[in-house]
């Protein structure tokens, strides 16, 4: 028990590896066992990450559950983990998403089953590692290692254009992160450490700081993705299998925004402030552009993918407004987007498994064929629009409120994005679920148990955050104040 208390983050991080080992060693005949092992592992992992939530100290603005061991001493690099109010919520979100990815793919993945669950477990390790790592080298290793399982998930189990999409995804993100690598090496050589907490206070400034910030920002902007480097996202999200889309939309693209919050702003405060107007502008462009692009789509997944571009625009807007309320909203919006978009991708995956079509025009009148499913979809649609009472409302409201203090004009344009959002989501709902029943979809099987169980936690979270956001906002308050205070020196 004491071991668990001292190494909780490491246990959460490496537990999936323990589960991966028997799956790896099992023969081809044991696919069902492999699935069960993966599910069981992620259940425990999720349980532990909830335990992490409960043992978090709200008043402490610094890092908690810190583990620091020497890794490469000639480079002064440590195996250094820790979470604070900014990152803590993402860890249960990640483990939950992976868990639900396992349940939603229970029947739909039919070939290379063991490999699929292995890839999911490794993705989970890489993402949790990225979220906890406080040593820049360790962070980079996890950040890059994430590409390997994602490359396979999209490329092996994806749709018809999966190979093009996965190569695009890989090369695009790889291109972005190599500049970050050079920036990290520069920081190390200048200050002799990879330790994030030590690098926070270092004096930079001038051109160096700007260039370093840009090095990091390119990697993060591609991952988020911000306009105009978003072009990999519609392809990757569309062609990925359901679980792949859920992971991509649910957590992977949040890592870019997390990177800005964790590294971009605190390490390069002056450069961040200098570039903020540009990034704010790009955010608003992303909001409007993403929304308009959604209106033109006839592909369910592509539409939701573009809506991600729009929603992530809100997140970056909240981050670069440099306002505690907006920043809280941004983090909450990341969680919301992870839940809602993840759930929407699951919903699309559910009908795709039955019909193998993603075209909106293929559907129609689905509400009378799959009523329970239609209810779920309706709630997630409304949450995506930001209806009061759902989580989407809280996030977007906080972002707009906070940004209003700093830049009123931008809020006007961003709010326009909300209206477009309502437009494309409701129109989508109308075309797919109402109108005449399309003969293509008559007699579709109702929701299966695993699908119902995968959607249910998301539904609960939609209302939990929507009705009682304090529960989640409390985690961030101290850390965000701390962050913003440091920005204004």
């Amino acid at each position: 028990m004491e071991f668990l208390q001292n190494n909780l983050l490491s246990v959460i991080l490496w537990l999936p590896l323990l589960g991966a080992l028997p799956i790896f060693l099992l023969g081809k005949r044991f696919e069902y066992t492999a699935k069960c092992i993966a599910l069981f592992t992620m259940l425990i992992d999720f349980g532990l990450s909830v335990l992490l939530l409960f043992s978090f100290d709200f008043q402490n603005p610094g890092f908690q559950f810190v583990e620091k061991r020497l890794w490469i001493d000639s480079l002064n690099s440590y195996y250094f983990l820790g979470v604070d109010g900014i990152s803590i919520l993402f860890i249960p979100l990640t483990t939950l998403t992976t868990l639900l990815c396992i349940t939603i793919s229970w029947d739909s993945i039919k070939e290379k089953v063991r490999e699929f669950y292995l890839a999911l477990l490794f993705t989970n390790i890489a993402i949790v590692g990225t979220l906890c790592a406080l040593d820049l080298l360790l962070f980079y290793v996890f950040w890059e290692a994430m590409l390997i399982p994602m490359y396979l998930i999209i490329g092996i189990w994806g749709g018809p254009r999966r190979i093009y999409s996965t190569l695009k995804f890989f090369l695009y993100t790889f291109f972005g992160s190599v500049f970050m690598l050079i920036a990290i090496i520069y920081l190390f050589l200048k200050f002799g450490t990879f330790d994030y907490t030590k690098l926070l206070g270092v004096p930079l400034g001038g051109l160096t700081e700007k260039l370093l910030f840009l090095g990091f920002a390119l990697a993060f902007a591609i991952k988020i993705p911000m306009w105009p480097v978003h072009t990999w996202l519609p392809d990757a999200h569309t062609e990925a299998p359901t679980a792949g889309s859920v992971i991509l939309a649910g957590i992977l693209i949040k890592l870019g925004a997390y990177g800005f919050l964790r590294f971009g702003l605190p390490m390069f405060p002056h450069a961040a402030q200098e570039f903020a107007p540009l990034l704010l502008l790009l955010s608003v462009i992303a909001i409007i552009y993403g929304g308009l692009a959604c209106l033109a789509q006839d592909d369910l997944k592509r539409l939701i993918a573009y809506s991600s571009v729009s929603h992530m625009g809100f997140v970056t807007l909240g981050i670069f407004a440099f306002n505690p309320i907006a920043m809280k909203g941004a983090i909450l919006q990341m969680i919301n987007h992870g839940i809602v978009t993840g759930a929407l991708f699951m919903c699309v995956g559910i009908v795709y498994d039955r019909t193998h079509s993603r075209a909106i025009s293929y559907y129609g009148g689905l509400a009378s064929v799959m009523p329970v499913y239609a209810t779920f979809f309706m709630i997630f649609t409304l949450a995506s629009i930001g209806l009061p009472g759902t989580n989407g409302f809280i996030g977007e409201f906080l972002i707009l409120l906070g940004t209003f203090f700093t830049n009123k004009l931008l809020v006007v344009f961003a709010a326009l994005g909300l209206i477009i959002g309502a437009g494309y989501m409701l129109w989508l709902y109308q075309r797919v679920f109402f109108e005449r029943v399309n003969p293509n979809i008559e007699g579709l099987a109702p929701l299966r148990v695993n699908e119902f169980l995968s959607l249910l936690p998301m539904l609960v979270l939609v209302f939990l955050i929507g009705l009682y956001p304090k529960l989640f906002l409390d985690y961030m308050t101290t850390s965000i104040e701390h962050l913003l205070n440091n920005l204004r020196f």
Partner: protein
Amino acid sequence: MTIELNFGVILSEILLLLVGCFIFLFDRFFKNKGYAFWLTLLSLLIASGVLLISPFGGFTLSYQNDFFSIVFKFIVLFGAFLVVILSKNYLTYHSQLNYGEYYGFLILSLIGAFLMLSSMDLITMYLSMELMSFPVYLLIALNFAQQRKSLEGSFKYFLAGAMGSVFLLLGMGLVYSATGSLFFMQIAQSLFGKAELTYVLLGFLFILAGFSVKMSFVPFHMWAPDAYESAPLPITSFIASIIKFVVIACLIKLLMVAFIPLKAKIGQILIPVVLLTILIGNVLAIKQDHLIRMLAFSSIAHAGYAGLGLITGDLIGYSFTIFYLWVYLIMTIGMFSIAVFLANYQKDLLYIPKLSGLSQISPGLSFLTLIFMFALAGIPPTAGFMGKFYLFIGLVKSGYIWVAILAVLFSVIGAYPYLRVLKFIYMEKTEETFSYRWEPGVWFPVSITAFLTLLIGIYPKPWVDMVYRTLYLYLTFLFYPY
């Protein structure tokens, strides 16, 4: 000056030479050629044991056993050990090649590599480089029975090597006329405090050109794809990993010991060469459909990456270069073991599109390929990433940020060919199937290299330290012996 004749220090070479001669002389008396394999393997093991206990010191002024040579001979022995094991398996399936001489030539080449690592004057270095290369030309040509093209590959390699030798000799002549000596230490002494270096620099550039052929630096890289493709696969891995390792290690020795004042200058000159090597290797690898040709171009690019450590002209950069070569040696031998496995079952499996759906047939093999491919592409947590990471650290440290940025950008291009191989293996389907057996001749080298690839990727420290300490101690003992 006394000339020492201490046979103790040169014992491992003598041993290998005796074994090589035995194979050449008595091969006719053995019906079953398996003896040569076991004899070679045994002699490699004994040679490593002898190396372990052999004393430091010189054998005449031209040969010296020291930290540098012993540690790097161990690396070479490790690589050769895997190559020999691989050869046994390869020869079982390609019986036209099954001569005792195959191992004899391999041992001769190995002696050349050993002598080159120990050489202390230019003539010995030149001769041992030829000793290392000639058996390899012959080994490629030996493949003639099953692949007509091998004669072309062998001849190309030979001509390129001959051209390199001409450059090397010319350079040695220039250096001799400028310094009056061919011994490293004496060259160093005569260059000490000397202001006018143009003549020596010119000489060294020719030497560098001669070495560039073996290292496959642009513009001396064109022999590589043909030679690689036509050689027996274990020999290809030998050319790609061990010969490159030895030649670059010796180049570093030259720069550290003999031509000290030229270090910085040579580094400057190498910048465009190295960058072009990386770029051309990576770009040309994109369109290759033959796995071995792809690996040949990737090998060119990797030689370029290793060359990044030479730019800075300091001990740290050199040790990173050698570390990278060590990592590359592991990855290459691993990848070629997989190629041997494929070639054993179906020759045309070496065409990348034919690899479609390999993961359905052999998930284990595909997974190992995955490790090596991502390692070659330089993605963490594999050794390939750590090797590149250290090289970039060396570059940024000396202020060559722009070189590092260009190199890192080229590595994005370079990722594509490896991803393409994985694309076929994992993302395409196949109807065909073939049955296979995991034989120790393949799984031993593959698993040991895959394990090292991951181990070094996760915990690179002891290996980097080892290389750095070797170079450091070597220089300390050479210049400040007590």
